[in-house]
């Protein structure tokens, strides 16, 4: 969070709101008839995340996490790619990033105050901040593990003291 007085995300947003946003995003972006089901499944051994940062009265990230194979399938669905069309790593980064972007933009719109949305990023999810500054929605898409996490930014590490004796 940006300031000590800022409210944690758990006071601003609930999982039902995130689910309602996902309910709009999935059929229009992922494809007709596609749904994000809020029933958790076991996480895979390897995951990839895409996220966008929200910078405003509340600071944090909206993170989408899934297995690489799920990200590939999501991309094929978003791009309506059919064999023999093959999606490449750049397509996967782009499509998963756009999913995080659309989710993040809609989540930003329900937060109080004016905020800015960062550009999508892909990789290992950013570190979380306070334990109560998280709204996580664990679920699945086509039976595969997928989570949407709205998490506060980790506090900046304290600058190391480097006092020079006078």
């Amino acid at each position, binding site marked *: 969070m940006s300031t000590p007085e800022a409210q944690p995300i758990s006071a601003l947003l609930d999982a039902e709101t995130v689910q309602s946003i996902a309910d709009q995003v999935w059929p*229009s972006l992922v494809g007709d008839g596609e749904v994000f089901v809020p029933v958790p499944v076991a996480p895979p051994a390897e995951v990839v995340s895409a996220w966008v940062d929200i910078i405003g009265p509340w600071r944090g990230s909206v993170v989408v996490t899934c297995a690489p194979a799920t990200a590939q399938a999501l991309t094929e669905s978003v*791009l*309506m790619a059919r064999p023999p069309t093959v999606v490449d790593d750049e397509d996967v980064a782009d499509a998963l990033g756009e999913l995080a972007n659309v989710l993040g*933009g809609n989540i930003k719109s329900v937060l109080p105050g004016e905020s800015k949305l*960062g550009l999508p990023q892909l990789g290992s999810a950013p570190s979380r901040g306070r334990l109560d500054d998280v709204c996580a929605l664990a679920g699945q898409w086509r039976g595969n593990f997928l989570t949407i996490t709205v998490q506060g930014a980790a506090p900046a590490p304290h600058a190391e003291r480097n006092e020079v004796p006078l």
Partner: protein
Amino acid sequence: MRALVIDDSRAMRRIVGTILKDFGYEVREAGDGRQALDVLEEGYQPDLCCIDWNMPVMDGLQFVMAVRANPAYRQVTLMMVTTESEMGQIVKALAAGAHEYLIKPFTADALRDKLALLGLLPEDVTA
């Protein structure tokens, strides 16, 4: 009709472009506002620009202002297609010169309705 789809996401460019092509549009793409201005400066004359807001290099709002500042592009219809859904942002885009605003996520029907409102839906497409 011609459209220029401006979005840093290839996936979103492909989605918007596919819908527009289904409506009979000839479509070109640009990955940010600067690239889009380059396309216009080459002489491409779109009837419609679909513009994302958050993009690197030059964002959608800056692109709208740049286009509106140039009388040569007066005939181009500008439609924001973005996740920025707060009323303040919508007002800002319309004040800068955008004609319409479509919030992501959207459906093909929603895009068709916006085109119909703008008078940019080809006659052979059912409104």
